[in-house]
């Protein structure tokens, strides 16, 4: 491991995973439990055909590889395969309940960065893939406030494979933790950091509309309105009105559904 120029962090952590996580650029990854990796069921479909040097890579991840016996070239390729394999396992792990709670912790610390959109008020982001197949698309960041995806600021993160996170992850997270769904407007009062923390602690927080229904949250969303000397721009304003109409149509639709079901839309 010494030859991999990891800096001083690697000195005190002797497991491959903790070394990998401490490497610069890997901040998005959560720690996959060793138990999870050791359960072969979780690795179904991952084999020598998908991952080169599969068994050695797996041994490296679980710290059971005798590295001394390998020459540098082989070690290099095993190392690469191990990262790849770890990524693929990671994508599976983070949609499990253990994985989700670990990622939630990272989300809370805003490890994945914050939304660049001005009217999202520095909303913490979540990583998302655009494909579950490796080597297709790099990782993107999903903002649960504007529900759109953005490219990571840094090239280090911009080159991570999106398949290491998968297309499902952020949406699964909010399915499992609906209390974490942020409101759409300006966070109430305090800064967004405090807000996230508060809603985590209280287990409720920023869900608007009485704490249960998210039907009409979109009305709180702010939009940029281009103005020339204070006057709205015709075409932009027309598009904006059209979008308002679409928004309200959706809200009406959802409210009707809610009424029919006689209960809030959970």
């Amino acid at each position, binding site marked *: 491991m010494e030859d991999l120029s990891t800096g001083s962090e690697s000195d005190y952590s002797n497991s491959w995973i903790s070394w990998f996580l401490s490497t610069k650029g890997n901040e998005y990854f959560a720690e996959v439990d060793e138990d999870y990796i050791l359960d072969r069921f979780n690795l179904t479909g991952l084999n020598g055909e998908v991952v080169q040097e599969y068994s050695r890579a797996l041994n490296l991840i679980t710290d059971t590889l005798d590295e001394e016996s390998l020459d540098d070239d082989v070690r290099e390729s095993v190392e690469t395969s191990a990262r790849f394999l770890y990524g693929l396992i990671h994508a599976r792990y983070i949609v499990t309940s253990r994985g989700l709670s670990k990622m939630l912790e990272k989300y809370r610390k805003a490890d994945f960065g914050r939304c660049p959109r001005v009217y999202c008020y520095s909303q913490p982001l979540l990583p998302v893939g655009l494909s579950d197949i490796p080597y297709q698309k790099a990782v993107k960041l999903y903002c649960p406030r504007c529900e759109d995806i953005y*490219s990571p600021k840094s090239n280090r993160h911009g080159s991570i494979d999106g398949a290491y996170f998968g297309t499902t992850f952020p949406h699964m997270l909010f399915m499992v933790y609906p209390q974490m769904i942020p409101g759409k407007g300006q966070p109430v009062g305090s800064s967004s950091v405090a807000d996230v923390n508060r809603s985590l602690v209280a287990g409720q927080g920023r869900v608007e509309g009485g704490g249960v229904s998210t039907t009409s949250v979109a009305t709180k969303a702010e939009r940029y309105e281009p103005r020339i000397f204070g006057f709205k721009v015709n075409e932009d304003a027309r598009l904006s009105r*059209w979008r308002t109409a679409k928004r309200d149509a959706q809200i009406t639709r959802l409210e009707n559904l809610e009424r029919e079901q006689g209960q809030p839309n959970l």
Partner: protein
Amino acid sequence: MASSAPPPELDPDELEEEAFDSSSQASSTATSTLTWINWYTSLPGHDYFCDVHEDFIEDDFNLTGLQAMVPFFKEALEMVLDVEPEEDSSKIPDVSIVESSAELLYGLVHQRFILTKVGLSCMVEKYEAGHFGACPRVFCHATPVLPCGRADMPGIDTVKLYCPNCGDIYTPPSSKYGGVDGAFFGTTFSPLFFQQYPELHSAPFFASTPSTIPASSSRVSPSDSPVPVGGSTFTNPNPHGGQKSALGRVYVPRIYGFKVSERARSGPRMKWLRERPERADELDNVDWKGRFKDGLASNDQDDLMQGQAGILSRDKSGKGKLFDDEDDVEEDDESEAEEDGVGPGIDAAGI
């Protein structure tokens, strides 16, 4: 610094240099040949600024009202224009005060300058060279962005970046722009810029895939106008509107390949923020309050049906199709997807 107020015969360049050394990274050698403006716009974090032409600043008419906003106006103006300071400059307690006044003055003049024809053409050059960066939104595919302010008065907000494709504003990616006041660009600049250069602004409508183009154009009644949608012959019927073909894809959240249903509590609520109508005339279906006009009230009903049944034959303007909401989005739209998406959505959300 107060004690080091320069004697009148001191070269103004040196005067600035002194101030800058105290603040930061002025190179001590190059300043003699640089004008203050060149120097200022080349500082790190100042690359959004263009060089305001000196004759613009020298015209008093362009400075109307600024005297009241900028302390030490006269000295600041001299500094910006590299004019020898006059005798009474020694009265100024601290040269760094003049320095910050000069920056304020320059910023406010800059706000006015970039609205002029010359200023706009300076900025379009910078825009096309990509000096302002690109939109971080994935489906804007790195559309170049333009600096804009949210206020015209200084000290309110920092500079933001406007994307002409999604029409939204973003925080600059680097903290070095955190010190640049949005008022130095102003609220008017970016909309005016795209009025001047509509070919750089995206049209407000978007037809999903090339395959739908024949269908959609055949739906256009002859009276509507000859609107070829998409492709190289793209035109916006509104001559003052954006003339660029929009990058209109919208992100669709999916769980294991199934769309997250809007009926789930965590379902999509913000798709409208990025959506566009398929054709320009659909914008007219909305009244001034942002409601679909009467004849289209059934539209909501149809959308409701779609929400319930997963299948829809919307008849908004004499056309029937499946899945109005999603069809501008993807290539892989299968008819089962939506309905199946409802299942997991509700189940999981019910936890």
